[in-house]
């Protein structure tokens, strides 16, 4: 067969041919397919590449966060260089440092003020679990006791590379989201996290009744603590 000549196909079954043509040129889909194949990927693609963090430095980790946004590590490659001063314009809260009890009401309020969809990245040991300062009387041992956290980045402080890895992990998480399950597309308003109160010590408003009950029942309170041996007791036992 020479070039330029069209190959003529002989149609054996007209129905099959018609179906094939329809499949090729007409988009037939269910609502599910539209969501899975078009809306979700499009939304997620946009979202993952324009995560705007709130410019919110808490402690040492904030300096590494600044280094990440500077020229060498260049956070702009991920579309995240726009550090917003206002929580209303931000999508991501990078909790960069120790959250103290005195600071916690402000952190929770900032989280509540952020517009959905919102993500939280706990940067460093302190924000994740209290870190080296966990035993301190003014330190919250892990912000996840109060607000939901999407990505934890270990380190004290995490290097900029570690933070970038955390941000890429967040992107992967965003990729897997679907509008059918995302909390912010559910009916009704999302409930704000109640502000913790600074009393004689930090009061988690959600636990206020439990605290009151326990404070009035010292016997019950005592049974809740697991005692471990102090060094002196261990020494004494060995003798």
């Amino acid at each position, binding site marked *: 067969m020479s070039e330029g000549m069209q190959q003529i196909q002989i149609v054996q079954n007209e129905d099959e041919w018609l179906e094939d043509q329809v499949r090729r040129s007409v988009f037939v889909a269910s609502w599910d397919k539209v969501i899975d194949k078009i809306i979700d990927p499009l939304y997620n693609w946009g979202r993952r590449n324009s995560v705007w963090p709130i*410019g*919110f*430095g*808490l*402690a*040492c980790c904030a*300096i*590494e966060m*600044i*280094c990440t*946004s*500077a*020229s*060498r590590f260049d956070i702009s490659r991920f579309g995240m260089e726009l550090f917003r001063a206002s*929580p209303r314009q931000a999508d991501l809260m990078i909790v960069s*440092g*120790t959250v*103290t009890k*005195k*600071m916690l009401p*402000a952190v929770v309020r*900032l989280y509540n003020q952020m517009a959905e969809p919102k993500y939280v990245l706990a940067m460093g040991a302190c924000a994740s679990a*209290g870190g*080296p*300062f*966990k*035993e*301190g*009387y*003014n*330190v*919250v*041992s892990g912000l996840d006791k109060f607000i939901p956290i999407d990505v934890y980045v270990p380190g004290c*402080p995490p290097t900029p590379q570690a933070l970038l890895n955390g941000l890429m992990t967040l992107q992967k998480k965003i990729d897997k989201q679907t509008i059918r399950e995302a909390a912010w597309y559910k009916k009704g308003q999302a409930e704000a996290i109640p502000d913790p*109160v*600074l*009393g*004689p*010590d*930090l009061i*988690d408003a959600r*636990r*206020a*009744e439990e*605290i*009151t009950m*326990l*404070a009035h029942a010292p016997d019950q*309170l005592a049974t*809740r*603590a*697991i*005692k*471990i*041996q*102090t*060094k*002196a*007791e*261990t020494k004494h036992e060995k003798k």
Partner: protein
Amino acid sequence: MAVNAPPAETKPLSANDPQTIAEQIKTKFPDALESASAQGIVIKRDHLLEVARHLRESLTFDYLNNVTSVDFPDRFEVVYHVSSIDRGGAPLTLKVNAARENPVVPSLVPVYRGADFQEREVYDMMGIRFDGHPYLRRILMWDGFEGYPLRKDYHEPYFEDEKKPFGTRWDQGHHVIAEDRNPWHDNVQYPANFDAVAFKAQIDTVREQTLPDVSPTRLKTEKMILNIGPQHPSTHGVLRLKTTLDGETIVGVEPVLGYLHRNHEKIGERNTYLGNIPFTDRLDYFTSMNNNHAYVIGVEKLMGLRVPERAEYIRVIMAELTRVISHMALMGFMYNDLGAFYTPLIYALEERELVLDMFEAASGSRMMCNYMRFGGVARDLPDGFLDKAKHLVEERFPRVLDELETYLTGNEIFLARTKGVGVISREDAINYSTAGPVLRGSGAKYDVRRAEPYSIYDRFDFDIPVGTAGDVRDRFLMRLWEARQSLRILKQALKDIPAGEIMTGKKNYQIRVPKGEVYGRGENPKGELGFYIVSDGTPNPYRYHIRAPSFINLTALDRMSKGYKVADLIIILGSHDVVMGEVDR
């Protein structure tokens, strides 16, 4: 002084000798002294104010370095360190005893304004009341917090044992996490019969501010309270400023601190001496090497350790490199505060990265170096470190500093915004106990590296730049000039660094520190960083107090910004170079 002279023994100048001073006080106030020794002069409570006034006015002890307190089993002891700006030398230690029950001590604020925040801190942490203090409120913790944390009988919720290292956490065959050891299953504790449901938090109040009379024909306007922070892009961390405004004019600024109070001192008193070194890294997280340096100097003084030559040089090289990058970064941050977002800062951070790489090679970590040890440094310098450092110090950094000077110091907007703004006079700067570039920017030539030379700073040839106007521009220029002087020191140190040991004796986890007390200090890029350590001979410090320069510098913020416009407040604060890790500790 010759560059290679043997290290001089640091003797206190006779004018600062406690015995001599005690004699002089005795002749003036016969019954004011309780005792006097090399450890300090103990003054009777009722005479403290007049003795302090006499020291300041007649004996030229015009600078209050540090105020702290120690909780002894039978009494509280309030400790003051005073020194003279012109004379220098080791600071003089004054002490006052307070009863365990209802401790009250006269406030020194009428004599030294710099005592303001420090006394509030003592009140907050130990519950010692200061009679005559204008605004005695909690400063690091919030009002209404239960207990005085630095008292020895205060146990935090996660209390495990008095001293580290702790016993096993596996005595039940599995690890018991801190949350389970506490009955509330969180880092909290409440008094008995506490009603959390009915509890109402206290209402925030503002310190009464008065405006100096500007003009009698001024329009009568109502004062407005403007809250800045704790989350604000230009407060350099989690600082909060309760600002009282009259129109746009600042009537008063009240810094609210403690949003990053991480309990360094309480944790430090439980740690071993060695275990505190990584915590000092996290004080002023820009300058971890300098923090290490000041702390090990304090403990070495107490132990009487001598450091090998090479280690001293390594320490100085690390400390000065830190100073250069800290000052460079600050110049960028100040431009950030002026509205030049990020561009100058990115240039500064680019240089910082080069130094951080070297720190990482030497110590293993970019920021939290944890590099110095008692009697030396942790590791020797890696191969090629000195060549890289020489390249940076001799070629790259001078060029970069020239560039920064060309582009940043002559900028018209910069001059309009900074010249004559945030002025503080020399007298006020001294009286408010400011330190570092803030103090020197006002013309007081006081640098711990010269006033009480530590390490081997007495061998290097360098100047202490001083400003003249005491405004924001001078404080900005101070950073530039000081970075240049640091380069001078670095050039000499890199040339002279000898080979040899880097550590005296063996590496030791558990050092023995003899009984005694010491105030070890070093010149941080932010000012005088001091460590007041009381040792009782055990492996843990009995008292571990940090004299944080940025914290005390903030005392003067109100004085500096009064009468200026609210837009100036940000740059005035920026010129302080506050780092909240150090302010709140």
